[in-house]
Each structure stands twice: as C-alpha cells, then as structure tokens.
C-alpha cells in the first residue's frame, strides 16, 4: 500500500476533515481541518494504516495570518516504508490542541519543545514544561515577533548579540533597497 492510498483511506474515514493529498518530490501531505481531532486521526493512522513510528512534530508561525499556528506531524510506517505529513492549524487565541502522547510516547519531548519555542499548549500532556529554555523564561523564541537579538529577561547579561555597527558605509545591493544596517537580521522586526 502506498502512502497515497493510505492518505485516501484516512480521507475516507474522516471525510471532509482531511484535505486532498498534496506534496512534492514524492512526499504525501494532508491537512486536518479540526485540530481537536488530531488524537483520533493519529490513533487511526497508527492502528489501522500501519504508521507505527512518529518521526517528528514541528510547528510553524504564520505571523500576520489567521490561524497563526501550524503544527506538522511526520508519520512513518516502518514495515510498509511509507511516510505521511499531517498538518493542522491552531488559532492564536486558542493556542492549544490535544496531546498525542498516548499514541506515541516520543511525542512527549516534541510537544514540550513546541510549547517551549512557540508557546502552543498541548492539552492532556503529562509534563508540559519548558525543555530547552529554562523554567521561568518569559518568551517564546521561535515566534516571528521575537527578535534574533533576543529580549532581556530577569537573567542579566545572557548571550546578547547586538546589530553589527557596519562601519565604513552601508552597502546597498539593490537600488532603493535597505542598507546593510537595516537589513541586519538582529535589528529586524517582523513588520519590516
């Protein structure tokens, strides 16, 4: 059974919740319309479709768009060698979706990382703490509105890299474009 057939089976089971399979370079991706059903979809994919291995969970910040968050699941069947990408959207007001730690225990750390980096909460997670940043850190650094240079927190003088001074004249590569100081990623905000 190919990944495309499996994606169609998933669609047959969940109907309009699952989008038409898409994807480039041999990959198959489907979108789940309702993030609340992610647990059911994953459990079905694992038990009925043979996707026994969760490769990864990642997250996207579609800054300035609604819904703001996209959570991306990479599923794999070790026996049938198929892969499926499952994406679902979560709005900024909600910023919450159910956990899938009961389906795959490896989801535990992946979900903690997403909570830590993006601030998306996973309902029902057994231990939703920060994982890479320290407990009590106030920001979510992978959000697009978090500057590359960092923001001060109660820990003083931690690893700040300010914008380079670019002495000797700003170098403009495109006529009418921003000069090198303004293009410097550490001063950039998502608006400019």
């Amino acid at each position, binding site marked *: 059974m190919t990944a495309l057939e499996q994606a169609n089976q998933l669609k047959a089971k969940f109907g309009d919740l699952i989008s038409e399979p898409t994807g*480039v*370079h041999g*990959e198959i*991706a489907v979108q789940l319309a309702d993030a609340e059903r992610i647990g059911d979809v994953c459990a079905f994919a694992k038990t009925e479709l043979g996707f*026994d*291995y*969760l*490769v*990864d969970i*990642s*997250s*996207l*910040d579609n800054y300035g768009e609604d819904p703001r968050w996209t959570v*991306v699941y*990479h599923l794999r069947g*070790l026996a049938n*060698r198929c*892969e499926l*990408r499952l994406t679902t959207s979560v709005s900024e007001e909600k910023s919450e979706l159910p956990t899938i730690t009961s389906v*795959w*225990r*490896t989801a*535990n*750390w*992946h979900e903690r*990382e997403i909570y830590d*980096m993006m601030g998306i909460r996973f309902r029902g997670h057994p231990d939703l703490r*920060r*994982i*890479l*940043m*320290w407990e009590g850190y106030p920001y979510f*650094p*992978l959000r697009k509105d*978090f500057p*590359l240079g960092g923001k001060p927190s109660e820990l003083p003088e931690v690893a700040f890299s300010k914008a380079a001074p670019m002495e000797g004249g700003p170098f403009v*590569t495109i006529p009418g474009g921003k000069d090198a100081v303004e293009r410097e*990623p*550490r001063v*950039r905000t998502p608006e400019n």
Partner: protein
Amino acid sequence: MQLNVSRVCGPRKTDFMSEVQNIDFSDPAAQAASVAEELQDMQGEKMVLNMGPSHPATHGVLRIVLELDGELITRAVPDVGYLHRGDEKIAENMTYTQFIPYTDRLDYLSPMANNVAYALAVEKLLGIHDKLPPRCQYIRVICAELARISSHLLGLGAFAMDVGALTVFLLVFTEREKIYNLCESLTGARFTTSYTRVGGVARDTPPGWCDAVRHFLDEVSVNIAEVETLLTRNKIWVDRTRDVGVISKEMAIDYGLSGPNLRGSGVDYDLRKAQPYLCYPDLQFDVPLGSVGDCYDRYLVRMEEMRQSVRLIHQCLDKIPGGPDNQANEPVNVADGKVVLPPKNRVLSGMEELIHQFMLVTQGMNVPPGEIYFGHENPKGELGFYIHSRGGGTPYRMKIRSPSFVNLSILSELMPGHLMSDTVVILGSLDFVMGECDR
C-alpha cells in the same frame, strides 16, 4: 536492595564501644555509634542525586536528576538545553548556504555527515536531488561513512572509558586522528568541515587523497579488530553491559529511537536501505541488528557498522567516477549557475557568471515555495531537516529533527530499576551528543 542499617551497625555497637576506650571522643568518627541510631530513622528515605550538567559520563552538558533508593534508581529526570544556541531561529535569518557551517556544530563528532544531510535536504527542496553528478554522490558517501567511523570510534571509546577500559579510548583516538588528517586535506579544516555545498561539494578530492583513505581503511580495520579482542569477550565488559538497559522492539519504536539504538533493539530500519539516497543503491552493505536490545547489542551493532562503513568506502573508491584523482574531469557540482557558485576565473571574465555570483552571494539561491522533510542516516540516528520555504533565499522555518534529542527522551523510562553504576553504561551505549540534542 535496601540497606538495612540496624543489622549492619547494631551488633557492632557494643564491640565498638569496648574496643575504643582510649580514643578522643571529640573526633566525629568516634560518634559513629550515635549516628547509626539516627540512621535507623532514615531507612527507606530516598536520595536525590544531581548528575551533570558537567559530568564526564554525560558526554557534554546533559543533566539528569536521579532519585535513588540505596544504589537503585527509582526515578530519572533528564534535563537538556544547556547547549541551546537557537540554530533554528538563526537559520530563518540567513541564506541556505550561510547555514552550512552551523550544521558542523550540530553533531560535532561527525560534521561531514551533517553537511551531507543538510545539503541533500535543500537539494530536495530545490528539486535537484536526482541531478547530482555521480562523482559528487560518491564523494559524499565517502564523507558520510568516514564520519560514521569517526563518530562510532569515539562513541565506543568514551563508552569503554566510562566502564573502565581506558586502553580502548587511546586506541580509537589514534585512528580518529587519521580521519582528522584526511578531513584536513580534503576540506581544509579538521573539525568544522563545512564541506558540502547545495548542489555539490566545496572542492574535488586533492591528489592522492583516495589512496590515503585506502591506507587509512587498512589501518582502521586492524584497529577495529583489536578493539574487538579487547572488549567483545572481555568478562568485565560483558558483565557490565549484557542485559543492562534493555530496550524492547516496541519501546524503541514508541520512543522514536533511530540509528544504532533502534537497530540494536532488532528493528530493521536503515534509511540508507529504506529510502535510498545518493549512490547507496549501487553499493553492497549489510545492516546489523541486535536481538535483545541491551547495551551489549548496541555495542555490537556499532562495531559491525564500522566494518560495513569500511566496506562501503572501499567500494566507493573502486567505483568513483573519474578515477581517484579525477583524470576524466568529472564534474562535482550541479551545472546550474543559479544554485552553485561559478568558478572564480569565469566570474572575472564573463558577464553571466558575474551576475550569478553576485546574486548568489547577496541574496542566495531562489528556492521555490514549498515544504519538504529529508531524513539522513547519521551516525547517531536519523538527522532530519523539515524546511518550509515561502520562496527567496532564506527558509521561512527550518526544523532540525536531531536523533540525540529523541534518543534521550527514553532515559526516564529506561533508567529506573537499574543500579547507579549502570547510568554510565546506559548513557555510553545510547551514544548521544548534546550539540545536536540542544541545537
């Protein structure tokens, strides 16, 4: 396993007191008897031990909070993130090519394999992954397999050293030194190689390099055999590692383990076979599997993987298109001026090449919108890159699926029930590296 304090100290109390009549009682040691009475109240009380973040057996900056009942571990809480540098955030702010040096610093024990993994991921996004010149593919496989030998050598050396076999560490470091020399003559750097480019490699192999690799392979084979004789049937080694840290097949899959840790538990999954990339389909190699899933199996799998890597590199050197020193002038880069930097002499003489060079350096290659995931069989496991592009020269989002991060998540399940002294064995057998775990 509970130490019964009253039984040990109780009968000695009177003997002790009668024997030490003349001792100075201001000495704290002399008050041991009364301490023993106090200890009776502490029976069954658990001790919390903080291991790391700087502990020689944690191979970097892993911290584990262990709850101990006597010598028995009852709970283990791993704490990662001490080496977090925000690589994913950094990647969003630079061109694809600029990120290559950062991949050296993921798994810093096998930088060449990371370079290959990253380049393949970006090429998949560009849709040029099947247009790579054959010579480039062979060079990349040699690099990736050299990195595998290097990483496994260090992994085993450190593992054996933690268990007490220091000789192995000295032996493997001699061999790793030779790999560094090979890296140096190929890439110009011993450690942070940054060798691959999107669409090819930085430079072709230098004259005589292939012969040097062959010479190294002969030497390392002898060395691997020597390590084998030191460890595989060594009673102390076997006693320390066998039936310790057993990971069942189901548990390994459930926790998403990858690489030798997954195969040590008997799961036949190797990305080089399951989703062949580069020239792996043209090469003969076997995938070793464990049967029990204990630390000894993981050790055996790594030993055999090194031998298979030697075998793979030998085949690559035999079959490399263009011959060892590329007399046939085979290309090593994709012939696409919008992806690969043109040769410098052409930049200074041709208009088109000058424009390509200018655009690539200032804005980066123009990557089409889309998203891909590419998983590479790295020495530590599956190193995956999920890249979401919205067009232009920088990724919108790049998620690095690091094998060490996923492999370490099993610790809280694996450690309880083992003795304190088994922690170093389990950590050594999982073979993780924190640069990659924390990113």
